[in-house]
């Protein structure tokens, strides 16, 4: 059921509590960036879950992180310091942006938790990134073996790939359905689906996805009347109230380029070599986030492509305040979209979003979009 997505998202900690009761022998690793190779963690029979913010004001991160680190990263750290994730057996991170990496470092410094850092490449464009990443994944795997006390063989890795790839394929299938004139699922439910997938056991989640695809989506219309089709891009973004507000106007979000959206699951694993190389290759070929998109700029073409394929009228870029990676791409992305004929609205997000002022700006943007359609 589609409602399960929101249920998992809203009750993420209770969900894990129940999961732990069912699987007392399995370990749980929280991670902070979607470059974390979940396949290997499943292969180790542990559970990977993504840590997101709580969207509440807090006053515990200030003494550990400067105010110029993005609100998301500060919110994530606060979750850790406030003990919301005390059930975790370990914390993991790959190379990611400096803001969320700071959250990881401070969490590790103050919570005395087992930690795994995989120094993944910063760019995937050099051919040497693949063997390098494979080598680092092997070291990660060995550390997981030590941690869980079980050997991880080729078959385990293939099983891990199968679990995660199934989630990816099913979610992509749902995203494909959003190309239709009347998408069967809203932007909000799609976002909740992706984050719920990040927060739950994928073996269980895959059955929910299968059920939704088979029994719920056929013939369903997320909105009764056709509305302006929008794309959402930018930094990490899982603000329910904001997306709800946009879709309560005459608009529907049909596609995104977010780590809480398509970027998480867009490509699956090509199985050609040994499993570790295949996994490394999957992450190398993943749609890049801004910090990994150099020396050649590949991200803009991917975004424009999505906008074309999902036939959007306009794009909202929602960017966390102080998010350097996305700010660094802002000019180029805006230019590329505008050149391709997609108007763009840039908005800056904080942990809690004041929906009122944003509504006025989104309404004005939608007006521009519809007036253009009149010509």
């Amino acid at each position, binding site marked *: 059921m589609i409602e399960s997505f929101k249920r998992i998202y809203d009750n993420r900690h209770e969900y894990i509590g129940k999961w732990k009761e069912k699987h007392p022998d399995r370990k749980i690793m929280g991670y902070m960036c979607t470059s974390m190779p979940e396949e290997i963690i499943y292969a180790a029979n542990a559970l990977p879950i993504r840590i997101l913010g709580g969207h509440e004001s807090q006053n515990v991160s200030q003494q550990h992180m*400067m105010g110029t680190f993005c609100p998301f990263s500060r919110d994530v750290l606060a979750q850790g310091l406030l003990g919301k994730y005390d059930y975790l057996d370990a914390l993991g991170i790959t190379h990611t942006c400096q803001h969320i990496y700071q959250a990881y470092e401070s969490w590790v410094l103050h919570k005395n938790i087992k930690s795994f850092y995989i120094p993944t490449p910063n*760019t995937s464009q050099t*051919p*040497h990134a693949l063997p390098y990443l494979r*080598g680092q994944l092997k070291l990660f795997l060995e550390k997981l073996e030590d941690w869980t006390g079980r050997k991880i063989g080729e078959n385990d890795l293939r099983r891990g790939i199968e679990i995660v790839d199934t989630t990816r394929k099913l979610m992509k299938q749902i995203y494909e359905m959003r190309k239709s004139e009347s998408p069967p699922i809203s932007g909000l439910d799609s976002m909740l689906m992706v984050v719920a997938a990040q927060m739950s056991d994928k073996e269980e989640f895959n059955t929910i996805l299968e059920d939704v695809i088979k029994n719920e989506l056929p013939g369903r219309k997320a909105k009764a009347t056709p509305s302006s089709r929008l794309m959402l891009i930018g930094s990490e973004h899982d603000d329910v109230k904001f997306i709800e507000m946009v879709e309560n106007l005459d608009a529907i979000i049909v596609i995104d380029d977010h780590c809480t959206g398509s970027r998480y699951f867009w490509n699956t694993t090509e199985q050609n070599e040994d499993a570790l190389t295949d996994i490394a290759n999957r992450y190398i070929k993943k749609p890049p986030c801004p*910090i990994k998109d*150099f*020396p050649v*700029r590949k991200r803009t073409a991917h975004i424009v492509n999505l906008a074309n394929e999902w036939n959007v009228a306009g794009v909202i870029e929602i960017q966390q305040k102080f998010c350097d990676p996305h700010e660094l791409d802002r000019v180029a992305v805006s230019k590329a979209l505008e050149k391709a004929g997609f108007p763009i609205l840039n908005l800056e997000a904080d942990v809690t979003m004041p929906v009122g002022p944003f509504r006025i700006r989104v309404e004005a943007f939608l007006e521009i979009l519809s007036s253009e359609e009149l010509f």
Partner: protein
Amino acid sequence: MAKYKTEPLKCWDKAKELRSEVYDRIAKARDEGTMIVSGGTESAISLPAGFDMEFFGGEPYVAGCAFMGKNDSSKYMKYFETAEAAKFPRDLCAYMRLSVGSLLCNSYAFGGTYPKPAFNLQTHICDTQGKWYQIMSELEGVPYNALDLIPFEWESEYESEESKNLKHKYLKDQMLDIIDWMEDISGKKYDDEKFINALNCECESASLWAQCCMVNRSIPAVMDEKMMHSLYVIAALMRHEKASVNFYKELLDELKDRAERGIAAFENERLRLLLDGMPPWHSLEIYRYIEEFGGVSIGSHFSFGVSGGWAYDSKQDTRVPAMPPKEAGVELRTREDACSWYSKWLLNTNTILRSLKLSGQGKNKHILDLVKKWNVDGVLIHLNRGCEGTAAGQMEIRYFLAENNIPVITFEGNHADIREFDLPRVKTTINTFMETLDLKKL
């Protein structure tokens, strides 16, 4: 009456001369069409030195813009405003914004038009670096490449040799590719001998600067940090040149002599401070203000590390000046040898490159080590709104030092954007700090 004897540094004029020579050479190259290569100054600048070229490094140039902006803000502010008008957000790296602004204005702060490079070569050391010169290259319409540098972890993390080997090979292989790429796009023949000479000079310069910093453990300090800014910049600009090696040899001799004779940088030294973060280039008078209390900044993780080569000594659990190839008994004969040495050198011996990505326990320990070894009485942390790289771990350092009973205070600012630096407020913060230490103005 003064507590110590002091005298001007004899090398001072030489440093100024060398610095302006570099900027003149870049202007001359621009006017005469000689090849210019540009990129961040922490780039592997010995790599393009296999060609006859002038290297136009981003950071020292824009730091210079910020410094000059104090007296004549016309260009400096125009650079910022132009970058902002082009929609580069104001909270991005202030160095990058100045650099983009200078380019968009087609203005070289030292006169004439912006020196357009043949290509940009960057080393990705913080999240901004790889993107900064991607943007510059797009605006200039010139080719761009970047080395992906993943530094070794701090020793407290016990990184495995296997992981280090992977990082080493990864960087080395990229270097070899980049040499081919540079030949391709420039159409020029690469000279391995020139590269090897440049690399030997680079390592020697970095080692010598680290040795100069070691001399500053003396009481009184023979250099203060504002002097250091004018001294380490030679390595930042031209560490791959023989002139840089010669300069640091001369400087080291002079500093040793000063230490022996008890010559102080500041005659009334009574409080030794360490500054964490980058200096506010537009407001270097904060160093003078500290002196009013008898305080002297004897350096910083940044000033020691940005041009210094430091090797970890496991027996003493501290860092000491790293040995350049010849001293380490290594003769670099081939391009492969040189790339192998170079990649390990950058991954291992540059504490700044390491700290921009990794802070945590390792950086905390490193700062505490500096405090102890350089006989520091207190730490001032410049929380830099203009640099996400050096901001990494700063609040944790404050927390850690306080836990270790080291007097520490933070002030917020921006190393290059004066609009985010409230000098009177910073002075008030310093006053408070001095009060807690029971120090009044002299």
